[in-house]
């Protein structure tokens, strides 16, 4: 019975349905619940293997998810405060990547490639998790909120570049991939706009969705031929069409609906399936050490520059902690390592567990102890873009009041 493709599909979709119902009830994203359901299925329900078609759907899930992550950035926010967001975002990637790589290689004795996978997985951040944390208090549209989101985007960009290039074969195919991708990226915004304008975004045959998927699949094919990773072109395609998507939300919403209904459940359940609870328990100390290193290196990379960029202790700590979150790209990087047999299941278990913990723990600490007010996050924009002298008396008073509260 379990060899029947329909029954296998029914079991996986049933698990995805259970995850959706639990997600609605408990108010936690369906992705995280799907991973946890996958963990339970792998450890207690005896579902240990995937099929070719499950792997294919999961692969599409990670590709479309990465595309959406790139497409959701607001190009205007990215350009404003570029100095602060680039510096913070870049260091938030670089320091954890190097420290974790070296720790895994020289302390834990992992191979260089395994250590690099660990470095990439744990240097990521999560734009969506950070957005959700800020939107709860209405902070997402403040200047400081936008700067933090842009910095998260830069960090993930570093992750995707590292994943796409570190394990690639430097041969003629890589050159072909880079050249073709560059040309297509250049033309993508006008092609996408052309398709939407000429064919309409409401046609039932969905030409614009098919066009985006065609480009993603084609560039994904070129990337994997060059032994690179398909998420690299997916993220970059998302980035270059972000401006088009910002004006036309229909397309992005439609792609998200397709991805969340059909592709991503297979990806996230599969991501959870390979987490072994036995390995997790055996490596609990290593998991905690990795988590601490991730958070401390993010703090070392982000905090001093946040202070330089006119944030006070509270906002700088808040920014550092939010940059220490992780989810999508952390699991994508770890699963890339497992699928390509760079890391084993025990190492995968460690990395995914740290990634999930990093989605939860830094955000809880940030919200509990360092939550800035909306007025302060707005005032930061005026201070940073002008200078202290040009700050209005109201801004200064707001900041002084907050400072007094901190001192108390």
């Amino acid at each position, binding site marked *: 019975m379990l060899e029947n493709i329909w029954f296998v599909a029914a079991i996986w979709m049933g698990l995805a349905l259970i995850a959706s119902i639990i*997600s*609605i*009830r408990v*108010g*936690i*994203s*369906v*992705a*995280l619940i799907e991973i946890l359901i996958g963990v339970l299925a792998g450890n207690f329900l005896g579902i240990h293997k995937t099929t070719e078609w499950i792997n294919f759907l999961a692969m599409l899930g990670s590709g479309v*998810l990465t595309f*959406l*992550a790139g497409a*959701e950035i607001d190009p205007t926010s990215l350009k404003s405060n570029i100095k602060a967001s680039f510096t913070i975002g870049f260091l938030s990637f670089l320091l954890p990547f190097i420290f974790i790589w070296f720790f895994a290689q020289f302390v834990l004795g992992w191979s260089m490639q395994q250590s690099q996978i660990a470095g990439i997985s744990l240097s990521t951040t*999560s*734009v*969506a*998790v950070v*957005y*959700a944390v800020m*939107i*709860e208090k209405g902070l997402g549209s403040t200047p400081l909120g936008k700067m933090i989101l842009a910095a998260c985007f830069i960090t993930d960009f570093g992750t995707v570049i590292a994943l796409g290039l570190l394990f690639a074969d430097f041969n003629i195919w890589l050159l072909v991939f880079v050249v073709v991708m560059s040309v297509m990226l250049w033309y993508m915004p006008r092609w996408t706009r052309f398709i939407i304008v000429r064919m309409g975004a409401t046609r039932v045959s969905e030409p614009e969705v098919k066009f985006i998927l065609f480009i993603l699949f084609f560039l994904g094919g070129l990337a994997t031929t060059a032994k690179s990773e398909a998420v690299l072109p997916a993220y970059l395609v998302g980035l270059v069409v972000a401006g088009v998507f910002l004006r036309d939300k229909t397309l*992005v*919403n439609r792609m*998200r609906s397709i991805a*969340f209904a059909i592709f*991503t459940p297979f990806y996230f359940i599969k991501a959870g399936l390979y987490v072994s609870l036995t390995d997790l328990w055996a490596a609990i100390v290593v998991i905690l050490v990795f988590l601490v290193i991730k958070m401390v290196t993010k703090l070392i990379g982000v905090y001093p520059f946040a202070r330089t960029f006119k944030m006070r202790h509270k906002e700088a700590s808040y920014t550092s902690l939010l940059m220490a979150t992780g*989810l*999508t790209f952390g699991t994508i990087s770890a699963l890339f390592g497992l699928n390509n047999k760079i890391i084993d299941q025990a190492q995968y278990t460690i990395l995914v567990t740290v990634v999930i913990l990093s*989605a*939860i723990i830094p*955000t809880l600490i940030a919200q509990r102890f360092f939550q800035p007010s909306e007025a302060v996050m707005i005032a930061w924009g005026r201070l940073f873009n002008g200078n202290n002298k040009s700050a209005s008396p109201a801004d200064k008073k707001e900041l002084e009041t907050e400072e007094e509260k901190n001192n108390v």
Partner: protein
Amino acid sequence: MYKKILVGYDGSEGSKIALTTAAELAKRIGAQLKAIWIKSKLPHYPETISEISEEQAAADSFLEGLKKDVLEYSLKYGIEIDFFAVAGNPAKVIVSNAKEQNFDLIVLSNQGHSSLWGTSLGHTADRVSEHAHCSVLLVRESE
């Protein structure tokens, strides 16, 4: 007699009966009436920003529908009915808001949208009646 009445309203058939009962009672005794909708919190730890923005847009659109409903009840019974929405755990939010705003009666349906979960986890109405500082009127759908 009661001076301030709080009624839970989520657009379900049960809550419509509760709102009808509360409106009739408020009109008869000249009490102030407020309706409350407890919206779900936005999902934590999402994978994409659009998950949050779409949830928020859907909640806003649902809220507009509820506001229209309440306005219709207000016109029908010729009384003013204030309406507000708060995110959080339904029972906790209703109990705390009733206490903070000095309501002396809470009117709820015994069955809202959450009947599936109510069976195993205990209905919101049960928990409100257990913890509220004031009287609670549970309205049955058959009424």
